[in-house]
């Protein structure tokens, strides 16, 4: 597999990380090396193997549909970058 600078930029865009041309070029070199290492996986035939998503085969627990959290809005918003009237502020999204 061969990565290109435009692949790196596309992935950075998907990940919401700003990246400039020089950084993208530098990142490309490093990611290409890492993907060469990752490609060694392809040498093993796994056509009959089931994927293992987790270390323990446990089922998701269920709980009563009851209120367990108390209102701590002020505490949680005290560390937010920008709040007003109990709301988190971000740049305008809807025109």
């Amino acid at each position: 597999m061969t990565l290109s600078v435009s692949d790196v930029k596309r992935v950075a865009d998907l990940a919401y990380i700003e990246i400039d041309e020089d950084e993208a070029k530098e990142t490309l070199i490093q990611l290409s090396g890492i993907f060469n290492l990752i490609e060694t996986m392809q040498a093993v035939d796994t056509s009959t193997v089931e994927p293992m998503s987790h270390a323990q085969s446990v089922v998701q627990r269920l709980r009563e549909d009851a209120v367990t959290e108390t209102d701590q809005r002020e505490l949680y918003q005290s560390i937010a970058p920008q709040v007003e009237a109990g709301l988190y502020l971000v740049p305008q999204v809807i025109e």
Partner: protein
Amino acid sequence: MFNASLKQLSLQLAEKKISSTELTTEFLKRIKALNPEYNAFITVNEELSLAQAQAADKMIAAGQAGPLTGIPIAQKDIFCTKGWLTTCGSKMLSNFVSPYDAGVIERFNQAGAINIGKTNMDEFAMGSSNETSFYGPVKNPWDHAAVPGGSSGGAACAVAARLAPAATGTDTGGSIRQPAALCGISGIKPTYGLVSRYGMIAFASSLDQGGPMAKSAEDLALLLNVMTGFDPRDSTSLQRDVEDYARDLQKPLAGLRIGLPKEYFAEGMSKDVESAIEKALDEYRKLGAQTVEVSLPNAPLAIPVYYVLAPAEASSNLSRFDGVRYGHRAKSYGDLADMYRKSRAEGFGAEVKRRILIGTYVLSHGYYDAYYIKAQKLRRLIAQDFAEAYKQCDIIMGPTTPTVAFNLGEKSGDPIQMYLSDIYTSAANLTGMPAMSIPVGFGDKNRPVGLHIIGNYFSEAQMLNVAHQYQLATDWHLQSPV
């Protein structure tokens, strides 16, 4: 006092030879004097620590003390700690004073232990040398030119340099065991699901596991008794009967079958490490154990598999850092997407960005099957290898790391060389098995060597027994660089 075991400290506190306030004050003084050199702690808060010590002294006076009451413990800065700056080694969280306690912190608080400070670590636990920390590298107390390992580098340094009697760490690919090995201390990653991940800032959720780091296996057992236990707030926390992890420490080792994976005794292990490991295995034979060769044919694939699965999970977990509810927000930006992009570009360091990009790529449309599903299939093959091996042995041993500690700066420009320092440790995370490292001597430049002990699921008490019996017969764990 600085070299005392947890049991000895607990006895001194119980007999009123020292108060927790005095003990805590002594360690705080030591940290104040030596931390500028080591950089093992990101945050020390004398006021909060001493308030806990005073409360512990009251518990002791009231006869309500447990084995860890009044004992200072260094907490890795990945555990959210109410009222404490909790940075995870990142600029992204450099202003984050946690509004709540992690499950692990709650447990130590309930036990009356003292939080002596928050330890330095690789940013978001992504690293094997502590050099990716926004707060700068940590020095290896045995040789200040060397790295302490990572990601729990500050924790390992704090214990080795006697800045704290014990510490907590977390281990996603070797982050407890590798720094323990490189700093000449003992550390254990328990079976996945035993230690609550609630409030433990997530890196790769199916691999992350907290665990203790200390001077001896006996200390680790006492710490595990406090750290483990069901937590309904962690969806993968296991509901099991309470165990005393110290119950089997005194058992003789006669008849123990130690499996030696031939893939771990192959090329890649340096001569000095090999020689220390062979001597340790000879000691085990003297203690009555027998060694058998086993094979883990897919073990060499653990690193490539790990570098698909861990970044994939990380890219998802770290999407929460968007500069909206907490953490770093860029000073100037245009629209919402631009705010996300700038805040994340400024808040994350190079290695974290690299892993987010790898993870985003392997999960993206068209590549998911070739990478993510392929890695999950290999994960199963690796787990099956271990299951086969345990038919022939009770426990598996090998080196924790291929070499002793490398120099600061030596590998920081080469991610792949850095990744390969976890070549023996990451399989235990992929399979969820418990694994530990204990010091077994010294290699080149008098830097410590760690023996890796991998157990079957839920065999922590047996592993600690195996480690403790070795530590009764040898004194590597008692040696200190200071």
